Structure formats: structure tokens, C-alpha cells
């Protein structure tokens, strides 16, 4: 409970004072409301004494009216948070999450990229943060008003207060108990929903095959299976989730009947006045309804809490530490000293005891089967994550003592998959160096062989990527990303086989762009096509996280081992033809 309380305030961030005020207002307004209800005791008494004392009645009604206005004003003020401040809170939370995104290690970023981060930044935040204010105040109201009334009743007739107590405070623990029962059911529902969703995707993608074998619609076994599981899990969950609501309502109704029966009995005994009983009934009925709704509220609250938890989880990811003193890069040679590394969620080492030294302005190729560690080496150079053992040095400086800004300023990466923002082409290129002039941007795109096709686009450099969408071919996108890298002019260039997914036509253009990019740089390239890297100063052959061979193409061919057999295989497959 305390944890939730703390979490709610931590999300409010710099708006914590406003939230506190809103909650405080809500408590006060609820007490006022409780007092107004309590005024029904004297009011009904006054109305039932004969003859009626008009003065007493009007004073009581006047007090009521004034207090209703006071409560209204308090609530109006309290709603400031729900209507205005909560938007600011959502805004601020998103900004904070965005900031955090720039700091968290790339490995964490990659791990959470697919779903988690999107959900946290978009859906969760807007839905949860926006409801915090109204939800908390509703819950406060539902709890504080009855407490106030019970306290007041205690002074008027302790026996009835106890009868009320039976229904109210027990409600919460009973609800909690049933909720744990529900928890599992709800998790099951989430799980089957996810299952159905993935089967639908499967089904859609598989339709060409499934149609041929008529495994569609009712006959789509895997899909139908998932649907019927979903159906039964949902029903179970539904029955379970009815329980707490039923339990609570029963409790509340029983409480009121207890009051009615006990009250009637006491009146007959002559120890209770008629107006007290009916005032209490009028009041008790008023809070029995909200109390019955508490189940719904609390389950929304649970949702909110799990959202808060996720936000907290993202906010708690620590950035990679920079050990002082922060150094500067002056050289671009790359050194791995007995580096061992494994990814956070894996047991096996991805790199084991890897050592090499790449002099400045040389070209190094990483060669090996998928999973051999090529990509990991390239990633570690840009400090994707920290290694568990060993040291990586750039220009003689441990990467761990470089600030991210300093480190990334000296590295350009060209991936197989190009990511372009939905912005103008010019701005996409300018990402390479935000201070670049238009002339710089154009010079870079000329060098990257893309000036020509950009000029042919409807609005030239001002064309937005979204507006032409799929109209850019893979090769064109690739060249834009190379222009970006050329503009950046970093001394270290990492290439993840950027031409591997292109058709022949685009390939030549991209190759020319790459020639411009890599000239005079320290280059590390992940190579699938060996012929590309025949001219490399050094080829590192990797197998299961270890360097098994290294040398120039000629040296390795002469050795006649791993590399040369890869080479042979590739030469052979080049000779292959499709035949019927």
C-alpha cells in the first residue's frame, strides 16, 4: 500500500505538490460530505418532533446548503488536477521517459524495443497518468465518507455504528482475498489473448499454404483451438471476477438489513428513536452504492499500479557508467584485450577471450557463420553493452571512460536495415551532423550518390519520407543513410554488410557511396560476401565466439583452412543455376 502511495507520487514528478493538494482537498471534501450526511440525524429528528420547530429545521437546512456549496467548491478545485494538471503530468512523464531512452544502454534498448517501450511511452502513460487524479480521489471519497459517517454514528448510537462497521471495514480484506483469486485468472486471460493474437498473425501469413490444404476458417485447427481455449479461460475468469463484486454487494446489503432489523428491534424495545434509524438508512444507502463499485475502481487501480511499475522499471535502468576522468579520443585504432561477453539474457558466451588490434585507417573484415560473434564485435566497439571480462580500447582509451557523446561522435554505423525518420530527406541526412549547412548536406549526398535521385523527387530535399513511403528503394534508402554517415565524418566506420539485401541495380550505386564513406577511415565490416573484402588489410575469421584465423586474404587462402573452405563454398554457389 505504501509502495503504491510512493509510486503514485513519483510519477507525479514535479507536480507532486499539486497531486498532494488534490488528494488533501478530496479528503477534506469527503469529510465535509460525511458531515452533511450526518446532519440528517438532527434534521429528521427535528422534522419528527411535533410540533416541528421551524427555526431548528431551517438552521439545519441552511447548514446543509452552505456545506454542500463548500463541498462543491472544494471538489471543483480538486478537479483542477484531473482536468488540467494530469495532462502536464503525462507530458512530463513522457519527456522523462524519452530522456531516459537516450541514456539506457543499447543492449537494454534492443531487448525492450519491440513492445515494452512503446507501450510504456504511449498507451500506458497516457491512460494511467491521466487517471491518477480522478482515481485516487474517487477511492478517497469511497473510503473517507463512510468512515466519517461511522464516527458520527458512534456518538449517536454505538450499537448501530457497530452494525455499520460489520459491512464496511470488512469489505476491503474480503475484496483483497478474492482479488488474489482473480489475479491468476486475469493473467491467464492476458496469456490466451496474446496466444490468439499470434495465431491470427500466423494464420494470416500462412493463408497461401493453408488455403491449398483447405485448413481455413473452421478448419484452421490451430486457430480454432486457441479460440476455444480463449473462450473457456475467459468464462472462468468472468465467474471468478464476479465473486468479489458479489461478495461486496452481499456484505453491504446484509449490513443495511442488519441496521434495519436491529434498529426496528431497538425501537420496539424503546431504546432508539425512529428518526435516527431512518436517517441512518438514508445515509447508509448513499454509501453502499459507491462501496459496491469499489471493486471496479480497485481493479482499475491495479491496472494503474502495474502500469506504474512498468514505468518505474524503465526509469530504473541505469545508464552505462563512465569512469572518470572522462577522456578524449585522438586516435582511432581499435584494440580488444581478452574480451569475453555474453548478452544479458543468455547463458552462453557470445565472445570468448577475443584479442586483436586494428591500426588506424585500416580495413578489417569480420567473417563467419551467423551466430559466430561478428555483429557482437561491431556492437561492442560502439559500447552496445559492457563486456564481462577484458577491455576494449579506442585510440588507446578504454571505452568505459568515454562519455557516450564523445564515443559516438567518432563512430559511424551503416546497417543492413536503414531507418529513416518521417521527416524531410534533408533532415534525415542532417542527423549525421545537426550543425551542417544545406551545402554540406548536398555535398554529402553527392558523395553518397544520392543527390541525383533526391533532386528528382517531388520536393527535392524537402520531400518527406512519409509522403513517398515505399517509393524509395532499398538502395536509395541505403544511400541516404550513407550520406548521413559521410556528413558525420567520424574516424571509425562500422559496416554491417550494407549491400547484402540489395538487387544488382542498386548495389553498384551503394558500393560507390561506400567507397566515399570509408576512404581514410578505420573500418570494420561484417562481410557475407567474401569477394567484397578480398582487399581488406586484415580478415578475422570467427567461429562460436572465438577468432579461429586471421590474416590477409592471400595468407588465409594459403593456409587452406577455415577461410579457404568458406571461400570455396561461396565460389561454388556462385556457379549455381536454377533448373527445372
Amino acid at each position: 500500500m505504501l509502495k503504491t502511495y510512493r509510486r503514485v507520487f513519483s510519477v507525479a514528478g514535479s507536480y507532486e505538490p499539486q497531486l498532494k493538494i488534490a488528494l488533501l482537498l478530496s479528503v477534506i471534501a469527503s469529510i465535509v460530505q460525511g458531515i452533511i450526511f450526518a446532519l440528517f440525524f438532527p434534521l429528521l429528528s427535528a422534522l419528527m418532533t411535533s410540533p416541528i420547530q421551524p427555526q431548528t429545521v431551517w438552521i439545519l437546512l441552511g447548514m446543509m446548503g452552505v456545506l454542500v456549496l463548500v463541498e462543491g467548491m472544494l471538489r471543483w478545485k480538486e478537479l483542477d488536477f484531473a482536468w488540467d494538471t494530469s495532462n502536464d503530468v503525462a507530458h512530463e512523464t513522457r519527456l522523462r521517459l524519452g530522456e531516459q531512452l537516450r541514456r539506457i544502454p543499447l543492449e537494454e534498448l534492443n531487448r525492450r524495443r519491440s513492445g515494452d517501450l512503446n507501450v510504456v511511452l504511449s498507451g500506458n502513460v497516457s491512460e494511467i497518468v491521466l487517471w491518477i487524479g480522478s482515481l485516487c480521489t474517487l477511492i478517497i471519497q469511497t473510503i473517507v465518507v463512510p468512515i466519517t459517517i461511522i464516527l458520527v454514528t458512534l456518538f449517536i448510537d454505538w450499537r448501530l455504528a457497530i452494525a455499520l462497521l460489520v459491512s464496511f471495514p470488512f469489505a476491503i480484506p474480503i475484496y483483497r482475498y478474492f482479488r488474489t483469486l482473480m489475479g491468476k485468472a486475469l493473467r491467464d486471460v492476458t496469456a490466451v489473448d496474446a496466444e490468439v493474437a499470434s495465431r491470427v498473425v500466423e494464420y494470416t501469413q500462412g493463408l497461401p499454404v493453408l488455403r491449398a490444404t483447405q485448413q481455413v476458417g473452421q478448419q484452421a485447427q490451430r486457430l480454432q483451438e486457441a479460440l476455444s481455449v480463449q473462450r473457456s479461460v475467459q468464462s472462468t475468469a468472468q465467474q471468478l471476477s464476479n465473486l468479489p463484486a458479489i461478495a461486496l454487494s452481499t456484505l453491504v446489503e446484509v449490513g443495511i438489513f442488519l441496521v434495519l432489523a436491529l434498529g426496528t428491534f431497538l425501537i420496539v424495545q424503546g431504546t432508539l428513536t425512529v428518526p435516527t434509524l431512518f436517517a441512518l438508512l438514508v445515509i447508509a444507502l448513499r454509501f453502499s452504492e459507491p462501496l459496491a463499485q469499489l471493486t471496479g475502481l480497485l481493479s482499475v487501480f491495479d491496472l494503474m499500479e502495474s502500469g506504474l511499475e512498468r514505468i518505474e522499471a524503465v526509469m530504473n535502468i541505469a545508464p552505462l557508467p563512465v569512469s572518470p576522468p572522462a577522456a578524449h579520443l585522438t586516435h582511432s585504432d581499435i584494440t580488444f584485450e581478452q574480451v569475453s561477453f555474453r548478452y544479458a539474457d543468455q547463458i552462453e558466451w557470445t565472445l570468448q577471450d577475443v584479442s586483436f588490434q586494428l591500426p588506424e585507417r585500416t580495413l578489417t573484415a569480420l567473417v563467419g557463420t551467423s551466430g559466430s560473434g561478428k555483429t557482437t564485435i561491431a556492437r561492442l566497439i560502439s559500447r552496445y553493452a559492457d563486456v564481462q571480462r577484458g577491455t576494449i580500447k579506442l585510440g588507446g582509451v578504454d571505452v568505459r571512460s568515454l562519455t557516450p557523446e564523445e564515443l559516438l561522435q567518432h563512430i559511424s554505423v551503416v546497417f543492413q536495415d536503414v531507418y529513416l525518420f518521417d521527416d524531410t530527406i534533408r533532415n534525415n541526412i542532417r542527423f549525421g551532423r545537426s550543425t551542417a549547412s544545406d551545402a554540406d548536406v548536398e555535398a554529402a549526398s553527392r558523395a553518397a550518390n544520392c543527390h541525383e535521385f533526391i533532386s528528382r523527387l517531388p520536393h527535392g530535399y524537402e520531400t518527406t519520407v512519409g509522403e513517398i513511403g515505399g517509393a524509395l528503394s532499398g538502395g536509395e534508402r541505403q544511400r541516404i543513410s550513407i550520406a548521413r554517415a559521410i556528413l558525420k565524418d567520424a574516424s571509425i566506420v562500422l559496416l554491417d554488410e550494407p549491400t547484402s539485401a540489395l538487387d544488382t541495380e542498386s548495389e553498384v550505386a551503394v558500393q560507390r557511396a561506400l567507397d566515399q564513406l570509408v576512404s581514410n577511415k578505420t573500418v570494420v565490416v561484417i562481410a557475407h560476401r567474401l569477394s567484397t573484402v578480398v582487399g581488406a588489410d586484415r580478415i578475422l575469421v570467427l567461429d562460436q565466439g572465438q577468432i579461429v584465423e586471421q590474416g590477409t586474404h592471400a595468407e588465409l587462402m594459403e593456409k587452406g583452412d577455415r577461410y579457404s573452405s568458406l571461400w570455396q563454398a561461396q565460389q561454388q554457389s556462385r556457379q549455381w543455376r536454377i533448373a527445372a
Partner: protein
Amino acid sequence: MTDQPYTTPPTGSWAIVAPVKGKIVGAIALSVISAIAAIAALLAIPPIATELLSTSPDLDQIWVWVAMSAIAVVISFTTKVFAFSTSHLAAFNLEVILRTTLTEHLAKVPLGYITTIGSGAIKKIVQDDVKSLHAFVADSTPLIGRAYTTPVVSLIAMFVADWRLGFVTLAVLPVGMIFIQLALHDYAEKREEYDRANEQINQVVVEFVQGMQVVRTFDDGSSSFARFQRSLDRFTQITREWNEATQTSGRLGTLLFEPLPTLTIVSIVGAWLMLQGTLEFPRLLVFLLLSPRLCGAFKPIFTLSYFINQSNAGAKRIGVVLAEPILPQPGRPKYPQDASVQIKDVSFSYGVREASPQESRPALHRVSIDIPAESVTALVGPSGAGKTTLARLIPRFWDVSNGAIEIGGVDVRDMTSETLMSWVSFVFQDTFLLYDTIRNNIKLGRPNATDAEVEAAAQVAQAHEFILELPDGYDTIAGERGTRLSGGQRQRITIARAILQDNPIIVLDEATAFADPENEALIQQAIASLTTGKTVIVIAHRLPTIRSADQIVVLDQGNVVESGKHDELVSANGLYANLWKRHEEAQNWQLRTRSVEIRNFAPL
């Protein structure tokens, strides 16, 4: 209970719930009973007051009223629970019906439609939109019953008790209605605007998260962060404007629908009437008990309209899918005579919906190709030439706009989908695997294949060996943690499936990406086994593999510009020769750090 699927595509929430109408009406009826019983339970209280206030209270009579009230509560409660379980049952049934109807329909629409909207969007409709209907059917329908019954019945009871106080209470109604109207009126259009802004912010978030990986290799993310921040500012601005417009009525609505204001007014007028001596306490009690309920009854209407809006949007999207015309099936299906393919004067352009700006011109223009059985035909051309479109017309991803495609002398439109699909197999570069055992994945090609046949196919597809090395061999779940298959391995599994399927015509979208050398050789062997003795149509991205094709068709901007064998085309010195030259150039490219003249792009 009989639940009937649709006769016409549904367009809104009420149309879409038609199959479970019976249950929904039942749920509403039950909730009406529940609401009436709840009021009856309250109405039993004032007579108790009358008795107690009388000079000689009749105890037995009091207990009778107490018991009646108790019975009414039990009835109200039971019917409420039943109403909700009935509506939930209806909602669950509806979900199953909708998902089955949708997936059945998807199996009948052109495959092209599916590729156009994408499996992600389909997932959203089949899972999320159907789910949004659940909230409507399960939670709103009982509320509807209550929301309308409670005010009507309470008002009647109140008027019977005292017509003057009845009018006072009734005055609350128009006030409430005005605020509801105000809030709901702004709702529709403002909501749309807000939704758009919300959608946009979601897009930016996705972009920000997806692009972060790339951005981080350029700078610390400050420029993209600025973009993110700008969109965020805009979003917050729109939200604020929306709030500005609705918040006064919203706040007033929230405050006035609390029971206290009504209760206070009723108390004041009631007290005044009692002071006049024209109202008795038990009658006032009726108002004290019922009037707060009146405004409480309106509250669900707010929630309701949210649910209904939400589900309407979902229902509309579902309706659009269900309204998509199915691929016309022939009245008298015919069967192909052999595995030859004739493309006869085919023109095709994408419908307005599918067309991206670039595709508005005809994708194919009067294309004719004759493909003899058991021959290899390669489709070649620059990107956007129409290779993929043409290949996809053969299995009727779309129907041609003009001309005809025939298999074995029979127009593809004169065959049933099943016949067509059992003649043509696809091997795409994006491999499709079920999250199921490897065995079942291969078996998908022919569900009644024996284990021996599956293994034989895997063997031929060069997949048997690595499958045996997996933790559970053929019973390993593809894609399960710890058994991540490489791209090449996945490809070989799909090839094994196609081999098992053994269809006479193979459409092959050759992989553009380079697998590692060892894998590549294996994939090639697998494809070789697959294509033996088949009619092969290959979309070629890399030229050398198709050098010995029986026929190379060169497409450019939707037209056939050349065709012939490799050597003929090279000597013809046309587009193909040009592509070939480029290919050779690309082949001989070597990456070097010092090979070109040094050009500096440092700040000028």
C-alpha cells in the same frame, strides 16, 4: 441458444451484435427486473416508518415489510448477477463468432488484399477490435436496462408519493440532460481530433523508440528528441484545447450528479411542505431514498457513450473487412490439363486503395508470356518493374484487369481456390513458420503425410540433419527459446514444406539477402530438389542463378521489353545486358580504405 452469423456485413455496434441478440435482449430484460426490484426494496421502507410512527405499531406487519424488502433485494441481486453473466456469455460467444467469421472471410478474399493490409492490421482487427466489442456487449447492455428503468420507475413512485415534490425532483432531470448534451455534443468531434493527435503521438513514440538504436549511433539522440518533444507539445496543446471546451460542463456534470445536491433540494422543499403540514414523513422518506438514485442512474450514460464510441469504431473496421468482396468462385470448376502457364495479354493496375502514389500507373501493361510445363522462366527487371506483381497474379493474389492467366489451358478464374492452390506453390524470401513443431510445420504442405514422408522431404531439403541436432528433433517447437533457427534453416524448412506439397508449379521469390556461404550452398541444393521436374517461375534479384533459365523475361515499368535466353539477351545489348554489366561490376567490387581520391566533407 442459437447464435446466427451475419447475412450482410455489419456496420455498427448494434448490427454487429445481431448473432447474439437473443442473449442481449435477455440480459437487458434481467437488468430491468433487477432495477425494478431494487426500487421495490427501497419502497418497502417507508411503510415501516408509517407503522413505527403510528400510535400502536403492528410488529408483525413491520416484519412482513422487512421480509418483503429482503426478498426484493435478493431478486434484484440475483437478476443482476444473471444479467451480467448472460451478457458476458453473449459477449464471449460473439467474440468466437466474429473471429471465426473474420478468419473464414479472410480465407476467401483475394490474397492481395491480405498482403495489402498486412498481418499486423488483421491481428488488430481480429483480436483488439473484437475485444473492444466485448466491453460494449458484456458491460454496457445490462447498464442500458438499468439506466433507463431506474429514472422511469423511481419517478412514477415519487409522483405517487407526492406530486409536488415529484416535480421538484423532475426539475433535476432537464438540468442533468443539458449537461449531458453539452458533454456528449463536444465529445464526437473533439474526440476525433484528440484521437488523431493521440494516433500521431503514438506514431512518434514508435518512431522514437525504433529509431533510437540508429540515432544513438549518430549522436546522443538530441535531434530526434527534439522531434519527439515537438510532437509531445502539440499533443498536450490539443488535449488542453479539448479540455478547455468540455471541462466546465464536465466539471458541473461531475458535481451535480453527486447525490447530495438533489438530496439537499428535496430536503429543503420537503421540510417546507412538512412545516405546512401537507406532507407526512413516510412520503418524504420515499424521496430521500429514491431521488439520489435518479441522478445516479445517469452516470452510466457517460460511461456507456464511451463504450459505444469505442465499439462503434471497432465494429466499423470489422465491417469493412467483412464487406471486402470475396474472390469470385467459378460456378462450374475446371481442372488444369498440365503444368504450363499462359499469360495472355495481361494488364493490371492496383485499385485505388492499394495504390501508393507510385503505383497509380498500370502495374502491368499487355504482358504475354508462354511458359511451357517443366521449364524455368525468370522474371528480371529493375525494382518496380512489375516482376512481383506478375508472379502474384498467377495464384490470384489479385485478378487481372484485362487479359487472362491460364494454367494448363484453364483460366485461373475458372478453378476453385483449392484447385489453384494445389497447383501452385510459393517459396518467398520471408519465411513463414508456425509456432509449432518442426514436423507440423513441414506437414502443413500436406496434412495427411506420414512421418516418413515428412522426413524424406526434410532430407531432400537439406534440413534433416540440423533438425536432428535440435533438442527434440522433429518435435522441437520452431522459434521456441533456445532453438532460434537461422534464416537459412527457416528457409530450408519452408522448402521442405513445398517439396512435401509437391505442386507442379513453383513460384520462387529468390532471396536477396546473402546467407552465410555454407547455408547458401545448402539452400541452393534444397531449391534444386524442389524445382526438379516442375514448372518454375522465379523472380530474380540476382542474375547469375538464372543464367541457364529456359526463358528470361525482362520487365520494365510494367512492360515486357525483352525475352530470351541469357546469351541472346546479353548480345542483344538491351536492358538485360545493361543489368548484367552492372552485376559484373558489383561482383568485382572490393572495399578499400585508400582506393579512391581523398575527399573531405569536414565543415566547409
